């Protein structure tokens, strides 16, 4: 019984040290703020998802057309709006990259 409890105590100490590690490694960090996406970064991410969806839809449409699942007529009717949408999203993303990146201040942090 004695060795079992001794082993349990050793395991507990190792576990506590591991759990406390972030505080031991950085006793007084410059910032303890958890990363957070700024609103414009969220918007950019939504645009990136939209871009990937639009490009994947175009790829899918091409493939469906090549395999005969979509007629020429349907293909022509669908491809233009999809291309337009993809171009719009790409333009919006480019505009976002050119613009300034605003930072969301952390809690308790002074805004410069």
């Amino acid at each position: 019984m004695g060795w079992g409890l001794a082993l349990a105590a050793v395991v507990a100490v190792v576990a506590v040290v591991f759990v406390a590690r972030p505080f031991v490694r950085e006793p007084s960090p410059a910032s303890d703020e958890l990363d957070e996406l700024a609103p414009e970064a969220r918007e950019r991410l939504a645009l990136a998802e939209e871009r990937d969806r639009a490009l994947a839809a175009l790829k899918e449409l091409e493939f469906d057309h090549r395999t005969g699942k979509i007629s020429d007529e349907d293909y022509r009717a669908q491809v233009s709006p999809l291309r337009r949408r993809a171009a719009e999203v790409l333009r919006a993303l480019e505009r976002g990259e050119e613009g300034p990146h605003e930072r969301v201040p952390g809690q308790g942090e002074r805004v410069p």
Partner: protein
Amino acid sequence: MAPLGRAALLLAFGLVAYALVAGSYAAWKRRRRLALSAQNALLAAFPVTLIAVVVLVVALGRRDMTFVYVWQHTSHRLPLGYALAFWGGQEGSLLLWLLVLTGYGGLAVWLNRRSRELIAWTVPVFGLVGVFFAFMLCFVSSPFHLQPAPLDGRGMDPSLQNPYMLAHPPLLYLGYVGLTVPFAFAMGALLSGRTDERWIVATRRWTLAAWMFLGVGQLVGAHWAYVEIGWGGYYAWDPVENAALMPWLAATAFLHSVMIQEKRGMLKVWNMVLVALAFNLSLFGTFLTRSGVIDSIHSFSRSPIGGWFLAFLGLMVFVSVALIRWRLPLLRTKTKLESLVSREATFLYNNLLLVALSLTILWGVLYPIVSDALRGETRSVSKPYYDFFLHTFGLPLLLLMGLGPLVAWRRASLRSLGKTFVAPFAAAVVTGVALLALGFGSSWPGLLAYTFGAFVAASILLEFVRGRAAAGGVRRLVSRNRRRYGGYVVHAAVVLLAIGIAGSSAYQTTRERVLRPGQSIHAAGYTLTYVTSTGVRGPNYTGFRALVDVRRGGSHIATLNPGMNDYNIEGPHNEASIYHDPRSIGDVFTTAQLVNKQGAVDLKVFVKPLINLIWVAGFVFVAGSLIAMWPDAVEQRRLAARYAAGAVPAGL
């Protein structure tokens, strides 16, 4: 030994409780180091739980009867392999839940650690589920209770003494518990407000893996029931079996509908609902099998864990609903369904059918419990109820599997549909007419299953043939969209499954007769002659085997040995003997009971055509799932770029 096991469980409880409390506080107050510390607590919970498992396994291996759990589930004569399967009893299976949960949770969090905003809220969700199971193991249903050692244990139920017992429960638990991963990330996404696709990307393979394990676990369980229980069937709509089927159906619906979110940005709310449904049904499944509620409402009220489970299940349902409702504004999308004839529409129909089937099974499971609780009457829901809904929802589902791949995304014109449908439709009509002419019209569900199966098989084949021509080879075709073509392989597995189930149930032949040595029985072209019976002796049983000669068309094809084992401690148990006929891909399944001292036996014969397709389907299912899961380097680079560019955190 036991104090070490108890201490390890207490420590695991402390760690997951810390992951819950400190993790929630850190995510709420946005404390980075505290969030990392909570993450480390979740990571540490796995090795600590593993220590408790090792203690229990050593006690089982040594048949240390001072452990109540060891005494309850083993005996000195029980073969070592079975004794070591620590999940055989309630406490052990709860321990397996916690082990898999902490392992999965730790790994999933570690692999996605860079997405700190999402992970910060995911860790407490894992912590919450972990706290429940660790609490049960520490304070309600501990495997480390001690007693003065009795001479021998109670042994293990004979039906559990089968190699499948070593694989079936762990596979099921890898599936059940695996559904916690998408649930924890989905709830983490709701809590953090990160309702973009990050949580889906993080859990895509986890969901597929859990779904695969749950599916394979059920097939292994069905095969176990088939070879071991001795009633000639493999699925009896037993609540314990249904417990695994319900979350699997919900997860199947999710795997389809999540593709619509990824491709069209639609169904965000529905996907959250499905993830929550799948997880809560997996909890409900564990509750069903472990609370005693199936036997009767009275045994449930006496069960030490039933009330706790019900309360936790209620809490998780409440939390899921409340979070989804809270974040509804973030989940609403502008994209609408463009046409009712489109790929996404067929996915939607498939979802409705899958969820309807899952919920009707749930009602079938709940009805006896509710009627017992409210009226004090014991009512059971039997096979005709389930068969009716399986035919009502399952057959259209099978048909949709063939229709879906042929329909284009967004919208499809009837003209192009007509062109793509010609070949599969012709295959289905030819199959249906040929089967009718051959006399298969005796079972309409069976005939429809075969006909729809032919339609699906032809549509899958067509997809591969046309895709190969467009892509320039099968390998290139599959590698450019592993999920789609892996999915088609899984669909092929479902076709095999449907054909196997229809053949072995709708077209099976059953015969039973008392035979004296030298007498015969005839069934579906086979002649079975009872020759004699002999005694057998195993490590912990004695018994008898009947020697049965099997002939077809006058030629000897097999000798079968059905009989019975009388276990020293556990009692008598049927031993079936099966001949796998390669010509019909079916089985001749036999059981025998000694009737008198002159050696007469009651021989029961089932001829089950095509049944082996069910087991073949299992291998095809795994192959398809692995193809769909296989990492795609191009896709991973694209996603990495997306999140690197879009997820630039504040301050960088």
